[in-house]
């Protein structure tokens, strides 16, 4: 299912998001990067339909997501929110189950989803007793369980140690293989180079540049986006960027 955004605008207090257009095809990962407060999370919420646009259109396979019923929408679009929830005394299973309640999921593959994230042993644990990283994995498992064709991930790597970062990267690649359209927001441009086919760079609610990741992530565009000078260097993975100031500290 293709995700398409046309001319999105949203005003929240003093912040406004203007004229955002992007597209993401099945089996493709689109990355969104930008400084804190650039509007990445807001954009993702608009794409998911949990926040209503002031103007513009979000289309899932050509259908306006705001005209879908909440259930239809949950079948097509899922979102990993940045904020980790804090329900009263839920066990991990209770948390993951909520993602399938309203779209008629049979609970058979609940275990396999937890297994695919390597967290089967957490299933009976109390959610609030988990570490920040474990909680993120559980929320990602909930998104996998929802099994929608468009997946939006807001900072999927925050709070994760290396092991969990690897598991999350695998999960994202798996979503891609399954033909889902995946949109992720990330601070780390180098992680985008690893994951994203296309990249959108944002600054203060507007798009600075967009296109194929290899073409877009240049020191010039990074400067336009973050206001910080970057240099390129070669890593074992290929070309990467590093902020000049970080080298001089």
């Amino acid at each position, binding site marked *: 299912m293709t995700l398409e955004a046309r001319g999105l605008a949203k005003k929240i207090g003093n912040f406004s998001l203007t004229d955002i257009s992007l597209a993401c095809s099945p089996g493709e990962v689109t990355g969104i990067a930008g400084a804190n407060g650039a509007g990445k999370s807001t954009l993702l919420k608009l794409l998911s339909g*949990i926040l209503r646009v002031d103007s513009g259109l979000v289309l899932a396979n050509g259908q306006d997501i705001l005209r879908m019923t909440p259930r239809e929408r*949950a079948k097509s679009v899922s979102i990993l929110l940045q904020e980790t*929830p804090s329900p009263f005394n839920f*066990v991990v299973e209770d948390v993951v189950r909520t993602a399938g*309640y*309203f779209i008629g999921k049979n609970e058979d593959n609940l275990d396999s989803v937890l297994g695919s994230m390597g967290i089967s042993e957490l299933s009976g*644990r*109390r959610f609030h007793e988990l570490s920040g990283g474990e909680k993120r994995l559980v929320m990602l498992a909930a998104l996998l369980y929802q099994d929608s064709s468009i997946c939006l991930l807001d900072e999927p790597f925050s709070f994760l140690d290396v092991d969990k970062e690897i598991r999350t990267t695998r999960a994202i690649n798996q979503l891609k293989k399954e033909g889902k359209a995946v949109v992720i927001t990330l601070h780390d441009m180098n992680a985008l180079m690893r994951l994203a086919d296309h990249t959108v760079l944002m600054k203060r609610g507007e798009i600075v540049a967009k296109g194929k990741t290899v073409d877009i992530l240049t020191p010039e565009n990074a400067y336009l986006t973050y206001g910080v000078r970057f240099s390129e260097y070669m890593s074992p993975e290929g070309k990467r960027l590093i902020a000049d100031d970080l080298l001089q500290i």
Partner: protein
Amino acid sequence: MFRLPIRDYTGNISLPIPARFAVLIIVLPVVIMLSLMVGSVYIPFGTVFRVVLSQVPFLGSHYAGSFSPEQYEIVVLLREPQILGAAVIGASLGVGGAVIQSIFKNPITEPYVIGISSGAALGAVIAITGTFDIFGIYSLSISSFAFSLLVVYLVYFLSLRHGRVPVVYLLLMGVAISLFVSSLVAFMIFNNVRLQGQVFFWLMGSLQELTWDKLAIIFIINSLMIFVAVTFSKELDAFQMGEEYAKSVGVRAEMTKLVLVSVIALGVSACVAVSGLIGFVGLVIPHVSRLIYGGANRRVVPASAALGGIFLVLAEDLAHSSLFGGEVIPIGIITSLIGVPFFMFLLTRLSGGSYDT
């Protein structure tokens, strides 16, 4: 440290969840039956049992005459409405608390915060001070019920923002309007010194005025409320994960809030209208349920109903006991007086630190 065997839902379970529910299902009727024995006149269990059986259709004739007419009158006309009323009201407040806490994602809320208590108090004071008595002996209940619903919907509609009701607005508006209405109530009481005693008794909550017809009404309304709350337990789970999350997994958030706030307002207002304000139950019983049965609302909602019922029946027994010099004291005083130390025990011993974070 001392731990109750039913400490954890996941760890070393010595009593599985279905067994814990079985305990509730047995305890509630037992507590009700035992409660029918106590009061100013003691009636032995066997007699109480026969009186109760005599009310069962077809079976009743076998038991007629095995007790005195006075005993029948005390059990059926005085004690049953009060004890069964305590069970219904306790269940209503427990479920109301579980639902409201889930919607607001806030552990210190209770059904009263959306304006039920202050509205009901205003209605009651208007009726008591005599400006509203067109429904005769039912004026107090009807006035309190009507004003309670009025204030809840006022809170709800004042919280509307672009067709949505953000829960933070709803909570703040509920607190603000409740304070405003409570001040009106205080002002009216201040101006009617001779009625202060009567108003005080109502504000503290009492089951003395419960009759079979009032019981029937609150039973029907609250059965509906509890049925709806159980039906919406999945939505409540999703709401506890945050409203944005709930929407993203397919919950009709605005419809859910409107339906749940409406049924809770109906059910709890009906109870408050016949009993006055009974505190503590709506706040604490849902937490007790979560500590024993885990947080998922498919368990918390029915458990809160049963535990709320049991708790309030026991409180009613205490209110009638001779501990307080033969006076029947308002049940609202008892609920907090015995409830708070009990809850503190539970919170430290039973939670196993689950509320520490």
